[in-house]
């Protein structure tokens, strides 16, 4: 049995190549991801107001659905889903009265009658499973086609790292998890000063000039430091950074698929590369 997996809205539509490559890599490494049988959007932003109980119902339902599988954890690939679900897990543990209200609300809904969340499900990111459950050494031993000579800049963005007190995946200013992954794959990680700088996120919707400027700086910096590609764990970072077509912006799972020789249709560089070629 695999780990319950929450894909989220974007991985089943605009970022299918992230979902496909992630699931294939996980299966190949003997740690399969089982998509939750019934899931809904996590809300895509963590509600920051103190009175956020209504807004937490959506992500809490995901945790409830995960708990229905009797698993102890739920895994995500999308950095935003990870952030929202992880912070929800944290918030509900910290505020038992909020958990009680949400449980009352959900258990009186006819589609989820009787279902409650006890707070035992841990939200993890697939990167964390690779590091903590498999380990970089074991991963490197599974690589059949080392990405030798490929210089890749790991771009972490915001929500995989912050707020550090609730997320705790890696150091918020000097993260290494994706650089370590790239090293395990035989690639050469390229450190650059904008690795944790915001890409502009959903300002793409209301103020597109802001992400355009931020993304330009990030991609130029990576290129100047010698990167031939950038890897990310977030479809929104991928979208914002990809606009300029200066470097290929890849999901880390695509490079994993390449290094594990899972075939071109799985690593599927097509969409990202086409923008670079023109």
């Amino acid at each position, binding site marked *: 049995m695999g780990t319950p997996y929450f894909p*989220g*809205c*974007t991985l089943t*539509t*605009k*970022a299918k190549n992230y979902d496909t490559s992630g699931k294939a890599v996980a299966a190949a490494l003997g740690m399969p991801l089982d998509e939750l049988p019934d899931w809904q*959007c996590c*809300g*895509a*932003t963590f*509600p*920051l*107001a*103190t*009175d956020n109980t209504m*807004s937490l119902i959506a992500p809490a339902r995901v945790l409830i659905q995960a708990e229905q599988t009797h698993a102890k954890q739920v895994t995500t690939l*999308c950095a*935003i889903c990870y952030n929202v679900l992880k912070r929800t897990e944290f918030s509900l543990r910290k505020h038992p009265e909020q958990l009680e209200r949400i449980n009352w609300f959900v258990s009186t809904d006819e589609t989820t009658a009787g279902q409650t969340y006890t707070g035992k499900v841990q939200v993890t990111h697939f990167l964390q499973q690779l590091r903590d459950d498999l380990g970089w050494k074991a991963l490197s031993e599974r690589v059949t086609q080392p990405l030798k000579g490929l210089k890749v800049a790991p771009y972490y963005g*915001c*929500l995989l*790292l*912050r*707020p*550090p007190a609730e997320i705790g995946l890696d150091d*918020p*200013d000097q993260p290494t998890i994706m650089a370590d992954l790239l090293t395990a794959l035989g690639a050469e990680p390229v450190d650059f000063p904008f690795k*944790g*700088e*915001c890409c*502009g*996120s*959903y*300002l*793409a*919707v*209301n*103020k*597109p*000039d*802001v992400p355009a*400027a*931020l993304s330009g700086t990030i991609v130029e910096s990576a290129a100047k430091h010698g990167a031939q590609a950038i890897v990310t764990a977030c*479809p*929104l970072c*991928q*979208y914002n950074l990809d606009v300029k077509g200066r470097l290929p912006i890849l999901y880390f799972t695509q490079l994993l698929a390449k290094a594990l020789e899972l075939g071109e249709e799985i690593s599927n560089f097509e969409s990202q590369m086409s923008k670079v070629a023109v």
Partner: protein
Amino acid sequence: MRIRLSAETVHGDFVKQVEDISGQNLLACNQCGKCSSGCPVAFALDLLPNQIIRMTQLGLEDVLQAQTIWTCASCLTCVSRCPKNVDLPRVMEALRQIAMERGATPMYAAELRPDLVANAPQMAIIGGFRKFTA
């Protein structure tokens, strides 16, 4: 712009409302400026993050007119670095909510660009609407 300060505004309902919604003690901020120096969108702001806090501490409701509250991307860089543990993104959220309660409408669905709807990840549109609509 002339700024009038009074004990009434500093101890007024506006400050209390922001503190209630955000859960933050605004006076914890001692204006070190670390938030503004590290803010990735500072180049696009009309008021810097520390100025937003300062105006809010003083109960100056003009802070709601600042474009900054609609330009903050909640990237959480400031809160990760604040030596006084002030959660500035939560203050921004409180200011957005109050501004929208008072009628501000920063975004309309009908005005979304077709190329954005066609190409942007859903999370951008959902996230944007949850932040910028009442």
